[in-house]
């Protein structure tokens, strides 16, 4: 390799990224994404909830093309009536569009919104999710964003070859 090879290293061309709402009209795109990204088939009730959760379910656009999505649901926190937990059900980006910061962008959007709940909503105590135990890439990704392993859930995915999962969570400071 010549000495100036480093300077000649190709640069990434500029691109545009944007988040968009999920609506009844583009729900087909979310379904399409989930079919490709996850081995789980989601029930119609899942998609119904997605339409009602506002900022906690988003589609991400790369150069105006829909390439990923994140969907969460709210759950009541144990033993509290005023606190809720946010569960990230799905977060994924199509293979060709990974390592471009799109996942981080979606996760940061979720965390920011979880931290600023408006006055008439319950506060969100923590954000959590499950990751298949062998998914190093995902584990690293969430740890980078301040998530910690809360527990190991054995046989969480009974139908998969690797059936264990880690439960990852991030407690939000009030």
């Amino acid at each position, binding site marked *: 390799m010549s000495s100036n090879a480093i300077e*000649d290293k*190709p640069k990434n061309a500029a*691109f545009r990224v944007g988040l968009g709402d999920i609506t009844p009209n*583009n729900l087909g795109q979310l379904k399409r994404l989930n079919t*490709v990204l996850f081995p789980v088939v989601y029930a119609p009730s899942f998609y119904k909830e997605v339409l009602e959760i506002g900022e906690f379910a988003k589609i991400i656009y790369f*150069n105006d*093309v829909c390439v990923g999505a994140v969907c969460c649901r709210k759950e009541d926190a144990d033993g509290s009536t005023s606190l809720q937990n946010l569960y990230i059900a799905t977060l994924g980006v*199509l293979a060709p569009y990974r390592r471009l910061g799109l996942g981080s962008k979606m996760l940061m959007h979720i965390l920011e919104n979880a931290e600023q709940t408006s006055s008439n909503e319950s506060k969100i105590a923590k954000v959590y999710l499950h990751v298949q135990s062998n998914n190093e890439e995902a584990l690293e990704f969430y740890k980078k964003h301040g998530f910690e392993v809360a527990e190991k859930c054995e046989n969480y995915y009974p139908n998969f070859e690797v059936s264990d999962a880690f439960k990852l969570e991030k407690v939000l400071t009030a």
Partner: protein
Amino acid sequence: MRELPQKEANLFKQILRCYENKQYKKGFKGAEQILKKFPEHGETLALKGLFYNHLDKKEEAYEFVKKGLRHDLKSHVCWHVFGLLYRSDKNYEEAMKCYSQALKIDKENLQIMRDYSLLQIHTRNYEAFADTRHQLLELRPQNRQFWIGLAIAYHMMGKPELGIKVLATYEETLKDIPTKPDYEHSEMLLYHNAMLEDTGDIQAAFDHLSTIEAHVCDPKTLKEKRAQFLLTLGRQEEAVAAYRTLIAHNPDNFAYMDGLRKSLGLDNDNLTCEEEVKVLDVFKELQKEYPRSNAAKRLPLRYATGEAFVKTADGYLRIMLRKGVPSLFVNIKILYTDKEKEQAIEKLALGYLAALDKSKCFDTAGSSIEPPTALLWTLYFLAQHFDFKRDTAQALGYINRAIEHTPTLVELHMTKGRILKHAGDLAGALDSLNEARELDLQDRFINSKCTKYMLRADKMAEAEKTVVLFARADIVDPLNDLVDMQAMWYSLEAGESHIRQGQLGRALKRFHQVEKHFVDFTEDQFDFHMYCLRKMTLRAYIALLKLEDQLRSHAYYVRATQNAVRCYVALFDKPNGEDSEEMEGMTDAEKKKFRNKQRKAELKAQKEAEEKKAQAVLEITKKGGKVDEDPEGLKYSKTEDPLGAALKFLKPLQELAAERIETHLMSFEIYIRKNKLLLALKSLLKSIKIDANNATLHEQLVRFALAVQKAGDTLKPAVKSVINKHWETLYQGKDLSGFNAQFLAKNKDLGSVPHLISAAIAVSLIHPNDKTKAEEILFAMGEDKYVSTRSLENCLLSMKTLKSLRSNRLQEFKTKAAKWYPKATAFQS
């Protein structure tokens, strides 16, 4: 008795005002009040009729207007009212007669004269229009509208120099020319200039521009005209400067750039090498000056050749693929008329794909890493490119890769559908389109496209369900609303689907809808005759008149006509119902059995449908909608005179599309069936003049000769002598077999499948008992030289021809065709 007492006379004036102000109910009451006292007052009776007309009571309207006239034949009001009534029913001829009567009684009635002139221009009776306009001007020379009306009359008569004189005279009488920008005055001056241009005296038009400049408030037109005139006058340097100014205003206007190129003297169809270099330099400069201009980047692709083309195209494609412009291929494919350019583009795009796969760059030198969408759009481009070449396998390969890459992109599924459609798999095409539609439910375009594919696959119920998804929520009968909205694409596609399903009545109903829309377009111009003069939108008005005159040469009208003629001809040939596609090739006994079976099924379906319909009718009428009295279109399919109906459809094209061979080919089909040999001959001669080697024409020539033969001695000598006179032109002194052989020999090297089909049909007509010869001719299409015209459409046509010959080699053909078009469902057994 016409004079009314004071009180009633005032009331009469009031109801006249009510009519002008569209207060029809109030006016109606007033009229009744007068009639209580004077039940035989003619003018009031007539007016009452007119009010009835506006209150949607046609019968009463005519009754009272006529009654009024009977009581007062010498009243111009009664005649005027009668004319207005006819006019509202679009019976212009009768209306004009009434106006002319009214004017005989009251020679200087401005209102009637004005109404009369509207009908004259509407029916394009320019001479009479000019007359009336002249009278109006003489009566009211201070009125600008009348001056301009007369100028328009002369202009439309093809005498712009007279129109100019009128306008010039009027302009001279103007004492105070508006100093502030005045749109109406400005428009009149620009119209004056447009007429000058129409005289062909460009110098005069050019000089005129500088005299009006100060008063024109449309500076863009002024500049455009100046540049255009300078170019025409050969004042190149000034033209160059003028076009450069225009480009500075809008660097994305193709016409301005064309103007600049021509001004620079680079205007040949085939540029020399030096000229090419010059043109490309001009665009390079423009690109530097206007880096955001698409026109400056795209236009050089037209002019560059060889190495220069590759370099220019390379730059252009990279920018567009990086940016992600879905329409890129549509924009590029126009260049493919030049094979060399097509190959160059293919090579470039394949090169990008290889490099992107390897290193995410457009080339191996690796200038910059492209976004993942660059690969996506490159795959999309290649899929379209190979689809354009009808290379289904490659096209599908690329589009499937693209879908795997980014399955959420609507365009990809749409293109996959298009590829499958071209390959003859209509059901598969429809599935892809439906997938695309489900990805974006708020996109009306994809919804309509999907509907179209459903109709192509003859899935009428699904199509109806899909297309109404975008109907407005408050519409009672959304399918009928499509007709009201003049959605002609839908009518045409639905009608063509009905033809395929053998439902000719329903099909004709659709084509007549299209025809009705064109009638409406013509009618719609009526309001503009007055409006444009009042609002002084003169140039737009002239453009409208010219457009209306050409209206029926529009592709949609032509398509509706071709289909309608096909239907009517089929109805004439087989009044008992056209064979549906599945019936082709059956024996008569089989057909009878099939028809009986069909009829039984139909009866059953009809019963069910009627029950459903009763329900639907109840619902629709409850909501105030209209009920379709004739959904089957029996009015059309049971017509006494299908050929007459066909001819009526075709008439406008014989005038407006006389340069299209299809017009005369259709005419022939009608005349030969009407046994009008001379008119058939005339159609043939016209076709020969347009394209003597047209495939269908050949078959028609043979049919004509056979018809003449059959008529034999029953032909009138006068007819016979005319036909004889042209015989040599038609058949070059050959007998029919010789004529057909000559046709085949002549087209041997052409490699044209349509010519084979025509020759095969011809031979089967000449030798009705020997189909082997016809089969032999058709099967020649397997030879390599026919590859370029062995399109799916032509293969389907060949199959149809074999079926109608009752050929034993049908299966053999299907097997062959299935190899050429493995995805086409029609050839699968």
